[in-house]
């Protein structure tokens, strides 16, 4: 009940707050209105309409979502969704995102799942549709006219007789007291007035004028500053800490040590930074790191946890009878999320309750982790999402939230923790390194008759979820165990095809016990995955494993089509069955004026700048979005430098919620994918990570000579809505790699395509010429 009261209280106050509301000013009313957090947050029942929506007497709408805006535009599109389904103007809707006290638990904002979760016939969309139908029902009674004679515009219900009543008059300030109805009808895309339109992003003006509140800007009365002192090398543990070494630092409040977690707290940020720099810690050395040079070879020799995703049981036999067998091995490095802002969080941990302002993607799971770290009851921990800089997955936002809580608990004051750039680069959970071995059998006509794929990825830690705070560095340093790989042999595939990591290439049928979930036609298929323990923390990085696997599949498909001298577009289409992936391939080829011919391009001189084109396509996670990408690149064969000149993307995510936001995601995805393909790689020596700043970890700056990006959006109003933030990025490395091959005849099978690697591949071609 308290939760409901709190929500009502919030609603009353919300009218006075402006769009870029202050998290800190929001927090106070809660604490005073609600007192200690004695209400279990799961009392926010997702089956109840009131958990999602409330309408004030002035007709303004407050909606509550567990999917938050990380910079990918979810604030804007979810506001559009609620406005559309409720038939109110966009600016009448205020969206409250991810706060364990007021929003439903929707887990983690990740994996391109926000749109599928909230825009199909469930959750937020269904709640808003339920509310509209309920309001019309009440209006029909109130006005004494049949339902079908009512129309509604911007929250004003009108009868043909001319009588009118507003939402505010119908329900304002009262609960609906209804269940979310599965039968409530969603508005048809053909009726849309707000959804489907290029509504400008909600945060835009505040961002451009420096008014937007990031978690870095949260200020709590009495707040002091913390910094952490991370182990100097992987796996190092604390032997001793000399607190006297920082006594000279003015404003020093405390040195905090908990197992191997070390941090300092001071009155001011600069003082905390100096204390963190000067604190003398004796560390027990870590176990050392495997050599980076032969990491990929070593990877394949480690004990592993294996999963057989598909196995038609005839792959060996088909390979024996094939006219030709082709093989290739691809590798992909660890990459960093490398958020532009080093992570930050503010925690206020008191004896009986805690509030944490966090840029986590997972407020509820983080609440659980914080309860475990602080020993406080779950119900007395509140996590409020405040946006950080773009995270692209599990950056250091979770771990810094733990840092802030541990330090705050030690000093009984609100503490803000700002990680340094090095902290960020060594604290985060990297995107996984992978090795992918491909093998196909080709028949006498040149068609693929069998595909055999074996993948190795690395794993250690990951998202903490609800019970594994040790999955990120702070939790582990404080004494919680990370998840690690328990080796296990593969078992027979069963149930439905699970292709969430795109380990299964698009070109196979994907059959398990006669039920086929693949996008292709190749019947003889086997995909085996190995997960191996990583020496570094790993976690999801935008298009996790999907990007690495797709790089290998799409480059290999290109190698095969080159081998049989087929056009790469036609050859793909020849092996695909799923209409939606076929359509994006065709749409991209058409937009690029693709001329059918095999790769590599004939007659290219091997001197100077050589141009080429390459295509790649994906059914993201098997069925969560479809895209094809064509890259046109220049390769300087003197330097090995690759420069993309033009990208053409065709994209299908079902009904398009906001074409402008979608284009923004696609354009950013393609360029981020290009940056990852051309230069990004975590590096290390025998003891520690050496890519610790923007000199040692590559990223393409604003001044980079940009390629032209053309997007073709395929709108499918009657299809289910899919994710759209990770589809295009998945294809960049493959399309660029294929374009390099088309230009030069040189195949680079290892990301990133550094000038050195490209030159080495080129010299191989020249040697064989």
């Amino acid at each position, binding site marked *: 009940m308290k939760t409901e009261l709190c929500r009502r209280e919030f609603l009353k106050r919300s009218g006075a707050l402006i769009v870029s509301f202050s998290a800190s000013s929001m927090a106070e009313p809660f604490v005073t209105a609600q007192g200690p957090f004695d209400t279990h947050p799961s009392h926010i029942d997702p089956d109840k309409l009131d958990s999602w929506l409330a309408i004030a007497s002035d007709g303004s709408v407050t909606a509550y979502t567990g999917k938050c805006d*990380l*910079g*990918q*535009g979810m604030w804007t599109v979810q506001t559009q969704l609620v406005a559309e389904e409720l038939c109110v103007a966009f600016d009448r809707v205020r969206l409250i995102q991810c706060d364990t006290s007021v929003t439903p638990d929707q887990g983690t904002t990740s994996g391109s799942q926000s749109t599928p979760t909230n825009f199909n016939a469930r959750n937020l969309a269904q709640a808003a549709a339920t509310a509209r139908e309920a309001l019309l029902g009440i209006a029909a009674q109130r006005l004494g006219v049949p339902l079908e004679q009512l129309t509604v515009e911007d929250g004003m219900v009108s009868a043909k007789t001319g009588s009118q009543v507003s939402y505010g008059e119908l329900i304002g300030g009262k609960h609906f007291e209804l269940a979310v109805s599965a039968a409530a009808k969603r508005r048809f895309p053909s009726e849309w007035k707000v959804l489907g339109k290029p509504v*400008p*992003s909600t*945060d*835009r*003006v505040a*961002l*451009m*004028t*420096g*008014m*937007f*509140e*990031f978690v*870095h*800007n949260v*200020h709590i009365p009495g707040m002091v500053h913390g910094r952490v002192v991370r182990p100097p090398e992987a796996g190092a543990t604390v032997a001793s800490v000399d607190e006297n070494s920082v006594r000279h630092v*003015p404003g020093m409040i405390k040195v905090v040590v908990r197992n191997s977690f070390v941090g300092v707290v001071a009155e*001011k*940020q*600069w*003082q905390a930074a100096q204390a963190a720099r000067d604190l003398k810690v004796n560390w027990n050395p870590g176990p050392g790191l495997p050599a980076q040079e032969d990491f990929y070879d070593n990877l394949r020799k480690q004990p592993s946890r294996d999963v057989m995703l598909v196995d038609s049981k005839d792959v060996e036999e088909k390979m024996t009878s094939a006219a030709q067998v082709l093989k290739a091995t691809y590798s992909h490095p660890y990459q960093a999320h*490398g*958020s*532009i*802002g*080093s992570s*930050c969080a503010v925690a206020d941990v008191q004896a009986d309750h805690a509030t944490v302002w966090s840029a986590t993607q997972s407020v509820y799971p983080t609440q659980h982790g914080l309860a475990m770290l602080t020993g406080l009851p779950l119900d007395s921990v509140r996590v409020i999402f405040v*946006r*950080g*800089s*773009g995270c*692209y997955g599990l950056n250091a936002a979770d771990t810094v939230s733990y840092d802030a809580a541990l330090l705050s608990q030690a000093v009984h004051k609100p503490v803000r923790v*700002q990680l*340094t*750039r090095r902290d960020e680069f060594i604290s985060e959970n990297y995107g996984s390194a992978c090795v992918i071995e491909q093998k196909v059998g080709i028949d006498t006509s040149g068609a693929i008759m069998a595909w055999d794929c074996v993948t190795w990825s690395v794993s250690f830690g990951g998202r903490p979820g609800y019970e594994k705070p040790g999955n990120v560095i702070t939790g582990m340093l404080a004494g919680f165990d990370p998840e690690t790989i328990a080796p296990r042999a593969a078992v027979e595939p069963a149930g439905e095809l699970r292709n969430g990591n795109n380990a299964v290439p698009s070109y196979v049928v994907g059959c398990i016990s006669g039920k086929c979930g693949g996008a292709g036609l190749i019947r003889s298929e086997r995909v085996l995955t190995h997960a191996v323990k990583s020496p570094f923390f790993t976690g999801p990085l935008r298009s996790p494993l999907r990007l690495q696997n797709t790089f290998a599949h799409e480059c290999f498909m290109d190698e095969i089509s080159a081998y049989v001298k087929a056009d790469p577009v036609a050859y793909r289409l020849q092996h695909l069955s799923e209409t939606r992936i076929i359509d994006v391939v065709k749409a991209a080829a058409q937009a690029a004026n693709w001329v059918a011919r095999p790769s590599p391009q004939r007659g290219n001189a091997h001197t100077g700048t050589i141009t080429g084109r390459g295509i790649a396509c994906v059914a993201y996670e098997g069925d969560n979005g479809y895209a094809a990408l064509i890259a046109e690149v220049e390769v300087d064969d003197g330097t090995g430098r690759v420069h993309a000149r033009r990208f053409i993307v065709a994209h299908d995510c079902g009904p398009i919620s906001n074409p402008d936001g979608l284009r*923004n*995601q696609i*354009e*950013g*995805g*393609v*360029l*981020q994918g290009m*940056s990852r393909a051309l230069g990004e790689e975590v590096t290390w020596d025998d003891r520690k990570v050496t890519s610790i*700043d*923007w*000199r040692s970890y590559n*990223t*393409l*700056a*604003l*001044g*980079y*000579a*940009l390629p032209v*990006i053309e997007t073709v959006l395929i709108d499918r109003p009657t299809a289910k809505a899919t994710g759209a933030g990770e589809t295009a990025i998945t294809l960049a490395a493959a399309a660029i790699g294929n374009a390099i091959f088309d230009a030069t005849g040189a195949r680079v099978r290892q990301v990133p395509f550094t000038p050195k690697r490209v030159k080495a591949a080129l010299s191989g071609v020249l040697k064989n010429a």
Partner: protein
Amino acid sequence: MASLSLKINGRVHTVDADPGTPLLYVLSDDLQLRGPKFGCGLGQCGACSVIIEGRAVRSCVMPVSAVNQREITTLEGIGTPEQPHAIQQAFIEEGASQCGFCLSGVILTAKALLDANPKATDEQIREAMSNVLCRCFTHTRMMRAIKRYQTRRA
């Protein structure tokens, strides 16, 4: 600690700070300005940029004592939500943001260049932006917004 007088966005502020404190901490902690942000603390990314006497400066590596009495402008100092500066308006029109954390570096670096050199060539603009980072890779829209501002101010 020393008492310092800072001219920020047209107003004079007196703050007590260690003279070696990076200007950024004074702006974001003591004065609670939201424009300049901690990106790297190393002067490598641009997120902390401010304009000092016409030049884009990285406030994370600038000791506050070095800017005593000098005119400092932050992202919120060049325009407001109601009356954005022309370059902010260009960014709004182009929708040139995703997370938006990098915008102080992008907008103020471009503004400082184009105010000093309104006829900067594309090459010169790219050169000026070669140490400014955006990890959402909103590059295309941002560079378009910069060109839009250049055209408009001409």
